[in-house]
């Protein structure tokens, strides 16, 4: 049996050795070995602890406290060193786990909307905001809806097969969206405020400004007391909303069988705001649509009384508006669906 002083010395020596070994460890694995050597079951300090029972009450207390303090000191050193080594090792591991952030991403990108759809939605939204409903109808129509109800009698030039693509006698691809006006008016009584987007067809050969398939948006308002001034105000509001707050419209006399009075509408060029530039042919204005007061014959054709209600109608070519808005020079681009062309559009 060794004396107590010897035992104390042993504990102190073990503690110093353990702390040294902990401090010198360079890997978490080495640290774990140091832990086993210092406070494991087979460590000298653990053996000493088992020998406490053979000591005097006083010695047992002294040595017990010493052993406990030594253990706490060693454990604190282990924790501290472990934290250091773990951080260092993780750092080293991350160094090997690298990615080139500039490589192309895993694709989550949306596609691009078609300019015609963008423009249709924008036009429609302006009018929906002004309290219009959206009306739609078939693309193949009878002559009644395409022409007769629109004050275009049988001998009207546009009704010949030369301009209209007929499917059978009296049935043709609609040359304008106006049949939907007629359907809308026949389905309900005034007041009626509708905007009609849709595909139309004319026997025009493809060139830079013509396409046999194209899109229109037209609008119709029939109510008591609707005036030409209301038409002007509505379209001025529309032009500002679509082309920008600085733009203005101007009305020129024109002729359409289904309106009286009739007008062609120019919008100030969105590029130069009316000053004149290359994109508007130095005139400052771009023609965008036709409009007018609904012809009394059309009102009568759908069973309305022209003495009781009046209305205005307007119609614009979507491709034309898109060409003005985006500066597109050739209408054929809309139907080629070249991915590189579509990539230009957003919204």
């Amino acid at each position, binding site marked *: 049996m060794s004396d107590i002083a010897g035992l104390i010395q042993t504990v102190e020596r073990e503690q110093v050795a353990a702390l040294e070994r902990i401090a010198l460890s360079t890997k978490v694995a080495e640290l774990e070995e140091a832990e086993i050597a210092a406070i494991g079951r087979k460590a000298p300090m653990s053996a000493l602890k088992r020998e406490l029972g053979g000591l005097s009450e006083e010695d047992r207390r002294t040595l017990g406290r010493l052993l406990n303090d030594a253990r706490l000191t060693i454990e604190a050193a282990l924790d501290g060193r472990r934290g250091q080594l773990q951080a260092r090792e993780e750092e080293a591991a991350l160094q090997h786990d690298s990615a080139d952030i500039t490589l192309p991403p895993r694709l989550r990108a949306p596609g691009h909307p078609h300019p015609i759809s963008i423009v249709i939605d924008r036009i429609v939204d302006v009018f929906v905001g002004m309290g219009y409903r959206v009306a739609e109808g078939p693309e193949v129509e009878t002559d009644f809806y395409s022409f007769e109800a629109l004050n275009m009698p049988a001998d009207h030039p546009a009704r010949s097969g030369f301009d209209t*693509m007929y499917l059978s006698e009296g049935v043709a691809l609609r040359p304008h969206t106006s049949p939907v006006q007629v359907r809308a008016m026949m389905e309900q009584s005034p007041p009626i405020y509708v905007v009609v987007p849709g595909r139309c067809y004319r026997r025009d050969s493809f060139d830079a400004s013509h396409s046999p398939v194209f899109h229109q948006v037209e609008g119709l308002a029939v109510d008591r007391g609707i005036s030409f001034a209301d038409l*002007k105000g509505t379209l001025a509001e529309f032009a500002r909303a679509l082309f920008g707050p600085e733009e203005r419209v101007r009305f020129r006399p024109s002729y359409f069988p289904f309106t009286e009075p009739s007008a062609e509408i120019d919008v100030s060029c969105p590029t130069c705001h009316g000053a004149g530039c290359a994109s508007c042919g130095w005139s400052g204005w771009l023609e965008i649509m036709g409009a007018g007061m609904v012809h009394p014959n059309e009102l009568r054709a759908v069973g309305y009384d022209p003495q009781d209600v009046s209305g205005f109608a307007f119609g614009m070519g979507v491709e034309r508006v898109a060409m003005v808005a985006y500066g597109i020079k050739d209408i054929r681009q809309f139907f080629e669906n070249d991915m590189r062309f579509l990539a230009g559009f957003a919204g």
Partner: protein
Amino acid sequence: MRVSWSWLREFVPVEAAPEDVADRLSMRAVKLERVEQLGAGISGVIVGAVVDVRPHPQADNVVLVNVDTGTDVREIVCGAHNYGPGDRVPVAMPGATLPGGMEISERAVRGITSHGMMCSARELHLSEDHSGILILPPDAPLGADVRTVLGLDDVVIEFDVTSNRPDLLSVAGIAREVAAMEGLPFRIPSPSVPEKGAAVSERAGVTVKDAKGCPRYLARVITGLRNGSSPGWMQRRLVAAGMRPISAIVDITNYVLLERGHPLHAFDLAKLDGPAIVVRRAKKGERITTLDDVERVLESDDVMICDAKRAVAVAGIMGGGDTEVSTETTDILLESAYFDPQRIAATARRLGLRTEASVRFERGADVEAVPGAADRVCELLLEICGGTVATGVLDVMARRPKPKPVRLDIARASTLIGVSIPAADMASMLGSIGMDVTSSSRTSLRVIPPSFRPDVAIEEDLVEEIARLYAYDRIPETLPTGGRTGGLTRDQRLRRLVRRVLLGTGLSEAQTLSLTSPSLPDRLGLPAEHAWRGKLTLQTPLSEEESVLRPALLPGLLLAAERNIARRVRSVALFEIGTVFAPGNDILPKEGLSVAWLMAGEMPGGWHGERGYDVFDATGVLHALTEGLGIGDLSVEPSQEVVFHPNRNGLVVLNGARIGQVGELHPRIARALDIPGRVAVGEVLLNPMLAAARESVVPEIPRFPAIERDIAVIVPDDAGAMRVESVVRDAAGALVESVQLFDVYRGAQAGEGQVSLAFRLTFRHGERTLTDDEATSAMGSVTSAVGERGWRVRE
């Protein structure tokens, strides 16, 4: 309509700048096309006289012409043949410039140097006429600048006249509008015609057998004429208006047509049998050779002008060659008539013959202008060609059309325009454009439109006249006051959602033509009966290429992909939402809304591992649609369809109805279009999808824990994952919350022709915590159900 400024000013004393007047007129009456300073861009073009014309030794289509320019005689190679020795022509000398910037230099044509160029009217920007060299008046001095000779110190204004305003197809008509707009007097002198000698009825007769087609026919006879060239001033105006001078008599009729808008025709009296004029319907199949040397075949609705024996003109459109006026002509019968607009329009359209005369007659000539126009021609003939006008006229008119008064309600006009305009102002505006305001009260005007305004027939027509003369610009901008609610319908909203969802999957939006080629299915090698063979063919297509209404959207997307790939675009990802057509039971075809998608080429960002598209990209888009719309009960069933890869496609079934197809394009079809790799495609009818879309609901978040169990089932390759999943789900009973496929394994452990599908089942009870026993029991049912199908559970 091209109007020269100097001519216009004969009828209205307007002093303002031509450009300003033209701009203002565009806002009040008729659309301005352009204002041209004549002769702009021309330099170095002088008058030459043709000396002789010889063939080119090396070329049949050009000739060698010696031209005397006053200072030399030079050889010019020319492609036109409409001139002869003595004719004066414009010669662009080497160094000359023509409008549009073309510069002329000496150059060899088939081995022979051309020392300049003879010009057509189009080359000098005088008109669109390029059918021959412009022949100048015989008194044009040799070597003179053509700008002077052609009166190119004038301004020409071109207007785009709408089809309802025949009156504006004349210088006087435009002048009348200018006068009304500027508050100036409009003056058109009445022609005075001294008549001499025999009565016209002794020289010729007129019989009208088709009074419907020809309500008025007036003839005059003029004898002893000298038909040379017309004077330079007249030629200049004709050329500026876009017409080619021919001979004095013809030029004078054309001049009056331009001046007053009324077409006239001169027959060589000596060549008329009778001499008599008979106006009748054509006999079906009757033939006439018109002035342009084309034989025309007629129909019974055509109005014919005949002499005692044969047809001599297609009424209101073009004269016949037999009775044409020539340089030898001394006596003429002058026709001034009014023909039925619709009859002339129909004939002109059928013959494909659009002339200055037909355009005016089909829009509606002025029946009251008939005598005045004839008199104006006589006046000019006497002045230019000499001769004698026979006494009297042969004027056959069935019934003079009675002018119909139109009542204008003053208050209603102001209401319709949206601004209050005093009655007196309305009356004076209407008066300024020739309307006869016969009486007025405080509430209304009685207006008789002039005979040259066939477009004015109802009150609204007068409202338009007032609105435009008041000026559209001055009308205020207001908004309709009626209360209303706008918005989109459910379907319209959902369609926008579908677009956003598809854009979100990385597809870009296409718009393809709804008209397709009937030969496309052949190109794709499709069988004779196939859904992509459209059954609706246009009667009047523009071309074979665009003659069939599309029965589906995918063919159009395939063509778009083909075009992109051909243009070296490496990745194509497109969708389209559009109308498809099928024969219907009604007179109208059946129209449906369809959505199609296509992915081909390289996948963007493909370096991550997946470099191309396949069937699962196609089904992925479908999945996006069902998730986006909240559609639960949609399934894809294996199927056979020739345009698809036979083992990589499926039918899309919604509530038991087949609504589309999804998968990979058949490699043979991809090859036919030169599209490399797998092409992922799909198309479904949209309306059933929209109908099945569910409204948003707040789901209940489960409060009790779930139990998860995995099971791997070994099934034959063709069993179909969706079917296996539904067997598993059905067997798992009411407690199963979800069944998720998480692994697909093919290999030794599954066995040849077999596949192992691993599912994770989540069990949960809504009201309490589930026990392990309950999950185990449910899994037992799954195991036996799998066994009953002859499948194995993988241990």
